[in-house]
């Protein structure tokens, strides 16, 4: 039985925003599943539906074999949920936060006490356990939040961008906790904008854009679908964004053999080709003849970013989040 099964899931918000436009995917039991997409793709919306926090508009959504709206109460006992923003009660200590979560999951007495102690150790909050969580650092708060989703030993853990806004060290730490949890058999469903993390840790992933799944599979499958190396070209004279020069360059490239695909990117042009290394001298020569100056040219094997670029014509830029984060501190961010 799959841990999560979604078919033709649609969510249209009250104001007419079509956040999710009929997506289908499946997460197997025990899988580490990545849900990847840029800001506004519909990741949070999907996760809220799967965790019984938002009603779907139409489609089928099962979690642990249970229909989420019909069996909401049962689903809530089986899942742990970490929201995009860190949510803890800062007036309570770390221990009290965990105990409250346990109580609300109908855990009591010695069993809960032991479980809380164990978790405090796991997330390295043993020493700060009885301090008001208001005095915790950002990373400690995030870890406490993560621990609070684990108190009742959920079978499936849903995490909405758990590493966004963390420094690289804390990010690595969170991922290593998650890896450990997954090794104990917990299914993990995680949304993120960080491609490298997904590439390294997720067994399978789906890429979401504008409410639609544009690709899914294992990282290596998706990358091999590209079936080519990537050659990144940056044009020297003038702004690489300006049209005519780029068009000229693309025309030149079109005249060369062995190229699989030519894609616009913000930095210039990306060319996909088998044995990209051999093609570089040809490209340089052709550009020389056409008197187009290159500022740089580079070859690399494909990444998930290329997968995303191939399907959407754009790149995922996690740094955009940081901007929206900063404004979120003053204006209210939409949830």
């Amino acid at each position: 039985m799959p841990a999560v099964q979604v078919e033709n899931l649609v969510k249209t918000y009250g104001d007419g925003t079509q956040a999710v436009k009929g997506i289908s995917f499946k997460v197997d039991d025990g899988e580490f599943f990545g849900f990847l997409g840029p800001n506004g793709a519909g990741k949070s919306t999907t996760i809220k539906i799967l965790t019984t926090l938002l009603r779907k508009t139409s489609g089928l959504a099962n979690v642990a074999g249970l229909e989420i709206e019909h069996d909401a109460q049962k689903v809530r006992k089986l899942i742990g949920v970490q929201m995009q923003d860190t949510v803890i009660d800062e007036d309570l200590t770390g221990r009290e936060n965990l105990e409250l979560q346990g109580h609300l999951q109908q855990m009591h007495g010695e069993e809960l006490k032991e479980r809380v102690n164990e978790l405090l150790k796991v997330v390295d909050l043993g020493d700060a356990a009885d301090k008001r969580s208001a005095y915790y650092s950002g990373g400690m708060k995030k870890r406490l939040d993560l621990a609070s989703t684990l108190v009742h030993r959920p079978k499936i853990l849903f995490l909405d961008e758990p590493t966004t806004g963390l420094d690289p060290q804390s990010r690595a730490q969170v991922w290593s906790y998650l890896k450990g949890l997954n090794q104990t058999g917990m299914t993990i469903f995680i949304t993120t904008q960080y491609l490298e993390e997904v590439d390294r840790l997720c067994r399978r992933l789906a890429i979401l854009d504008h409410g639609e799944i544009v690709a899914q599979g294992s990282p290596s499958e998706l990358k091999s679908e590209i079936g080519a190396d990537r050659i990144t070209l940056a044009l020297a004279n003038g702004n690489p964004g300006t049209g005519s020069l780029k068009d000229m360059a693309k025309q030149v490239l079109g005249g060369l053999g062995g190229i699989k695909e030519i894609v616009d990117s913000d930095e210039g042009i990306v060319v996909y080709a088998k044995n990209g290394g051999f093609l570089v001298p040809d490209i340089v020569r052709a550009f020389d003849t056409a008197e187009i100056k290159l500022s740089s040219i580079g070859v690399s094997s494909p990444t998930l970013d290329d997968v995303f670029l191939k399907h959407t014509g754009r790149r995922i830029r996690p740094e955009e989040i940081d901007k929206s984060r900063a404004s979120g501190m003053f204006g209210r961010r939409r949830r």
Partner: protein
Amino acid sequence: MSLASDSYYMFLRWMKKLVRNPILLFFSLFQPIIFLVLFTQLFSSFGLLLGGINYTIFATAGIVLQNAFSSAFQSGTAVVDDIKSGFLTKMLATPASRASILLGRLLSDAFRVFAQSLIILVLAYGLGVFPVTGFIGYVLILFTVAFFGLAWSGISLALGLRTKSAETVFGIAGTLTFPLLFMSTALMDKRLMPEWMKSVSAYNPISFAVNAIRDLIMIGYNWNSFLLSFGVISLIAILTLGATIYEFRKVVS
């Protein structure tokens, strides 16, 4: 099924938050204490106009009610905080009973009003105010005022859930407090009011509760006024808590 235990833990959470914010605790008691100590001194000559009674004794019922009123009126802002921080969502992701989220909050409001009223009554005792009905009078006063607080926090909760803005709740509470207080028998006997105000005050729910408590302090058991105030508070409770449940359902679904 888990309603009782869930509500208890929600209640406990609010209690912890309350005692850990002593400044909040202090300031919510500050105004009633100022009223009790300064206002009653300033207006002590009203006692003469009321036939030579001690004004502090007269005003204690009103001050207890005023505190209940403004304390309960802040309840909605706490719920707005929970909505904005996402804590409400976090609770909704657990199997905890939905009703317990409201019930825990309401119980904590009632308890807070109960404790604050007790402090005011103890201070008043120091100023020579004690109910002629004695210990049972104290118990009845505290329960009446806690019940009033519970009913009144419903308005604040409904407003908070509807507007999701603490500023709005504060604004409305602040604007309504004094007109409602002054157009009631809280601080002034109806005999000394202008005619129009007398009629307003006769329908002001605060007046009913104040009269019941004042009778317990000054006269003795007046079951008519006690039951009447109970009826009025129940009516308010049904209306405000009905509105709260309605707004809560909209937020939760």
